[in-house]
């Protein structure tokens, strides 16, 4: 019992230690030339443009759900006039970032984890290294950087879709012009209310990219190992993303009151 607890603990710290070493290697590779611009652009397209439909759809669905729930709750308290701002704030500050993070974690985390794991078990990563090309720079740094850059942009897209469908859901029940919705929803909006929650998703991008690359590039054990890495990438990235959100929300409230 004590032995297994000790093994679990040491495995936990070993994982974090290895993750730290991996991050350091990626960071060092990322800031030293030659820079892999072409691969970065390819990853921006892969992670950003190709995730857009999924993120937009998720955002649209969330917009409808939040709209219906908010309308029902506000009606009970006779505060229907607060509907536009409730929708805007709950989407942009809370739902948009976390839903985008989780959707991207599922799509990109699994994709990167499986791709790199497959490359690892078929010795393709060794072949890159043997060709005197730094795999941390070519494979990991480009993917992580693309995740960091694209997450805030995808969040903006998800927010926009959510607000649009939220307004449509509301307007279908009760007449509300788009102009009125926007004016009322964004009334008194400040930098602190919208920009930090959107840009905190860059940290989600770091978490998704880092964990997926780490899990992928340390894969062992053939096809089963590839499957394990893909699953672990999604599970761990989603878990750490939610845990990071707890810290980030508090951080934003303190730094950007």
């Amino acid at each position, binding site marked *: 019992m004590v032995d297994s607890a000790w093994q679990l603990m040491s495995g936990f710290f070993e994982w974090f230690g290895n993750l730290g070493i991996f991050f350091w290697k990626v960071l060092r590779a990322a800031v030293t030339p*030659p820079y892999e611009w072409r691969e970065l652009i390819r990853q921006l397209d892969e992670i950003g443009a190709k995730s857009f439909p999924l993120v937009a759809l998720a955002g649209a669905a969330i917009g409808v759900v939040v709209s219906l729930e908010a309308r029902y709750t506000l009606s009970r308290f006779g505060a229907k006039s607060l509907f536009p701002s409730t929708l805007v704030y709950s989407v942009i500050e809370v739902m948009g970032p976390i839903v985008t993070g989780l959707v991207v974690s599922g799509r990109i985390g699994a994709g990167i984890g499986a791709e790199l794991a*497959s*490359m690892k078990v*078929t*010795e*393709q990563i*060794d*072949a890159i*290294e*043997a*060709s*005197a*090309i*730094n795999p941390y720079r*070519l494979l990991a740094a480009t993917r992580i950087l693309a995740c960091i850059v694209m997450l805030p942009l995808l969040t903006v897209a998800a927010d926009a879709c959510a607000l649009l469908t939220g307004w449509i859901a509301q307007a279908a029940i009760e007449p509300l012009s788009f102009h009125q919705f926007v004016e009322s929803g964004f009334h008194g909006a400040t930098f602190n209310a919208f920009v930090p929650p959107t840009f905190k998703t860059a940290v989600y991008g770091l978490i998704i990219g880092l964990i997926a690359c780490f899990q992928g590039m340390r894969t062992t054990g053939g096809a089963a190992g590839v499957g394990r890495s893909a699953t672990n990438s999604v599970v761990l990235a989603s878990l750490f993303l939610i845990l990071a959100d707890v810290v980030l929300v508090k951080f934003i409230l303190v730094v950007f009151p």
Partner: protein
Amino acid sequence: MATAADISTKPKETEGSGCVPAVAVENLHKTFGTNTVLNGINLRVNQGDTLAVLGRSGTGKSVLLRLIIGLIPPDSGSIHIQGKNIAELSVDELGKAREKVGFLFQHAALYDSLTVAENVAFPLKHHRRKMPKSERNDRVQRLLTEVGMEDSLNKMPSNISGGMQKRVGLARALALAPEILLLDEPTAGLDPISSREIDDLILKLQSERHTASVVVTHDLFSAKTISNRLALLNQGNVIIEGTFEELQKSDDQFIRDFLQHP
């Protein structure tokens, strides 16, 4: 007959002196868990020489190649590439040293998302960034012609046979015109005709480019054809090193058994 003990001289540090071996391995140890794979081996390959490393499966032949290129670190001992101890090199210096080494993996390890031509162009794109595209394409074409794969430029690795993948892997290993070649089972899984073609290609490279090669193989005929020296590994040690004829003269029962039933 030369044995491992006879060749354990430390390589001289002066590059270009003519005495510096292309690859020198000294007192190399490697253990995985409780399994000691290499137990203090010494090897030396001069420029223009080809050393065939033989041994039963699981005796650490492929591990030796991975240690030489620096993909895995040794537990102790040293590896010199053209006189430079790779353990003492910075990341950039190790990269420069690796540019001089071409590595053919046992299963070719082609990049499965790239075409045959893109696979061969891959090292050139990263190390010869200023090379004009037309020149790069010409070189890729020439390399693939050299290995008899000029008709498969746009095919994906999954659409060609294992033997063809090996040829493409060899073309990729030659892309940067390496001075040293590390070949892991270049003829394994190939039909006899393809095997001999690969052997001929390696011989041609030896004569034309004066490359130093370390070839891990189970193919005794191939080893005899392409190498001027052979080293036999057993239980983590080089038990004998010399020419094929020298190995044949050995009284050691294991060596005699191995040569009769490789």
